[in-house]
């Protein structure tokens, strides 16, 4: 009895170990941050407390955390599917931009329905996103064109193309900035939680996480994604059709990207104002990696990073510490959490102890 108990909480348990490791990583990252804050500020304790607790001090702040989480979680999901398939494609960044332009086009069109308009404003960018992702998908599947190169080039091309469209065909005449007209009121998503700007997009995200989870772990497509991702030759040999698979994965990924960008714009923006790539796609890649390409992992990473970002933002407002401090926390954290060998020696010693103990008994 007692033996079983000790085994359950012991570090040799993969899951327990991961959690302990993550906690220690967080502590180290925060420790470093604290040092930096001490160096920069006169009242480090107060600022540090703010950093950690600010997001839960106000409903609105916590809402902000969720708001920040949604777009990067969507792009994280999109990217994780690609990574899972063994495709190193960073094209979601470009999809966010051009998908945003498409969102603007739909959302600025007069459609007199509070139901249909949002649906179309999300669905059309999603489909366009999916179709556009088929470009690198096709080039990869058919000609084995390096998807990283293709996607990076397409990102820059979509930026230029999107700006061109906005300037020439979709410019808001009520602003002297380069931006689309204000979205139709019918297209905007309603805030569903008072004091926050959380919209239906939050539930869309949860549904997306669930569906991607099902897709990856419960369906035949997911199975072939996972097998292709680990060994493409093997997948081929087993009779899986790489071409169809690549096309499907790219489409789904682009589709998710399209949803991500449209709900972001329809919830928080009100008009399309991006003049550079928004960085949400790259951030998504980070979430995907941090979450080990697991949809739930992506969600947790996105929440966590957003929480810290909000904490850092509140802390930095009006203080001596620039908000860029977030970069330090995030980098250290991402690096440590994703370090598989971090604390490994320790764990191995534990394993050996237990292994020999088992041998003896």
């Amino acid at each position, binding site marked *: 009895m007692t033996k079983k108990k000790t085994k359950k909480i012991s570090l040799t348990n993969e899951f327990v170990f991961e959690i302990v490791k993550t906690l220690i990583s967080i502590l180290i990252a925060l420790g470093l941050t604290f040092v930096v804050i001490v160096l920069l500020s006169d009242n480090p304790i107060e600022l540090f407390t703010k950093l950690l607790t600010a997001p839960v001090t106000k409903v609105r702040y916590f809402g902000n955390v969720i708001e920040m989480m949604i777009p990067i979680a969507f792009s994280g999901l999109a990217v994780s599917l690609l990574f899972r398939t063994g495709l190193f494609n960073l094209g979601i960044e470009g999809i966010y931009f051009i998908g945003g332009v498409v969102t603007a086009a739909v959302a600025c069109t007069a459609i007199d329905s509070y139901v249909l308009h949002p649906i179309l404003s999300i669905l059309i960018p999603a489909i366009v996103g999916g179709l556009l992702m088929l470009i690198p998908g096709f080039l990869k599947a058919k000609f084995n064109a390096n998807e990283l190169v293709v996607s990076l080039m397409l990102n820059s091309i979509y930026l230029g193309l999107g700006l061109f469209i906005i300037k020439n065909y979709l410019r808001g005449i009520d602003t002297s900035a380069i931006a689309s007209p204000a979205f139709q009121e019918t297209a905007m998503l309603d805030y569903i939680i008072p004091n926050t700007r959380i919209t239906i997009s939050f539930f869309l995200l949860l549904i997306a996480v669930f569906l991607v989870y099902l897709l990856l772990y419960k*369906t035949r497509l997911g199975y072939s994604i996972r*097998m292709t991702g680990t*060994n493409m030759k*093997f997948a081929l*040999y087993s009779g*899986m*059709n790489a071409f169809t698979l690549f096309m499907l994965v790219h489409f789904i990924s682009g589709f998710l990207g399209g949803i991500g960008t449209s709900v972001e714009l329809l919830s928080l923006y009100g008009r399309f104002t991006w003049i550079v790539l928004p960085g949400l796609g790259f951030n998504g890649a980070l979430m995907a990696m941090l979450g080990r390409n697991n949809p739930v992992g992506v969600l947790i990473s996105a929440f966590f990073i957003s929480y810290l970002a909000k904490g850092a933002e509140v802390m930095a407002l009006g203080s001596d510490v620039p908000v860029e401090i977030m970069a330090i926390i995030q980098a250290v954290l991402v690096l440590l959490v994703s370090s598989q060998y971090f604390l490994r020696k320790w764990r191995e010693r534990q394993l050996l102890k237990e*292994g020999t103990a088992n041998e003896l008994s």
Partner: protein
Amino acid sequence: MSDTILKLDNITKIYGNGVVANKNVSIDLKKGEIHSIVGENGAGKSTLMKIIFGIENASSGTITYKGKEVHFSNSMEAIHAGIGMVHQHFMLIPSFTVVQSIILGMEPIKHGIFIDMKKALSQTKELAKKYNFDIDVTKKIADLSVGEKQKVEILKTLYRDAEVIILDEPTSVLTPQETVNLFNELRKFKDMGHTIVFISHKLNEVKQISDRITIMRNGESRGTYNNADITIEKMTDLIIDRDLITDYSHLRKDYENVSTVLKVDNLSIERKTRFILKDVSFALKRGEILGVAGVQGNGQAELVRCITGLMEQTHGKILLADNDISKDSIKQRRVKGIAYIPEDRMGDGIAEQASVSDNIISTYYDRKDINSRFFMLNKKIVAEADRLIKKFSIKTQSSKTKIGSLSGGNIQKVVVAREYNTAPSCMIAEQPTHGIDIGSAEFIHTQLIDMRNKGAGILLVSADLSEVMNLSDRIVVFYEGEIVGYFKSVKGVTENELGLYMLGVKRQTPEELGGALND
């Protein structure tokens, strides 16, 4: 005791996943001996060798080399100390040339910093000549046959002039003649004072070459014996605790409805300068095993890839039960009844990072019984996997274990179990027991015969002549992309005679060869 060069004391190795690969193993190697290590798959042989070579660290225990305790933390240190190793799986880089592969890590230098390519070339050429290895050192590894690659691996060790040479299953892909050559060389090394550690599953070879033999089982040593003191039967007994079947004839049953299941019709693969396959025709019938003999690299691999759909032929047709499948996708061919045990089990056969259960269903993952309309039925998959694990006595912690951590033999069993499980009408078995221990090999052989008895046609491609002779009903011999010999029955055919066809010395007339298609 002074002649002991390397001594292992109570070596225990526990892998990160908790597998205990070696348990208190103690072995001493004498200077100038050939010391074989035998044991079933997963017994811990390779692990032990990796520990000696500094690739893995022992969890406990000590290594004494030339009287001093050593701790090699990487292979560089082991190499500098004079230990060389030929690994079980090839350690070669396809885009490198033979010369580059051989000199890598010990490059001749000119002007202080640059590689002396001229010297490297002459040195490696000389080396190959000295040991009678017929190989073009300017070729790329990718263009070599498996046998040639094995030679390069051995040349690498020789080039480093190792005092202790570890050979982890070096003969599994060599022809009998090549094995004889290798053994002559090994004896030469021995006479020159080198110590050789030799790992093989072919016990007759072990018996032939060894001075002493250590037998391993379940990570433990079951003792070291002088060659003279142990018989093959005794070894078998220590390895698997039972007797082996060596002759399968009593297992064979005649299949009733003999019909052609696979017909290969004038198949050719043409490349810029030469034919890889030329006008290959044969028929494979239900209830038979058709053996394909030949030195590796004579087109057998390409033939198999064409049949399975991994490669496209330039001319000719492939018919499965009279349907032309030449243009079908891999999947379609599989659905129509082709199964395939691939030669490259690590590359094609499995996804190393995935679990055993994921691997064991890959070719029929969409089959009805393990799927509902939208979802895969995890419980049923696990149940199926567990059933196969049991049936094929696969040694694994569970069906959720990463397959990459299984031993070579057990990985192969997973592959065989999977292909078996599709109840194919046509099974392409390519080197099915390459590197597999005697127990597992026997098991796989009986499974193949069982399938044959139930009416599958089996195309057995193997470099192991005794395997071909033992299992096949009929045999074709490949040489330079063509069928040069056809034997309607294995009775009366000797390995030596096959060897003559394999080396291109003898060749049958077109009429005689026509039997492969028409019999």
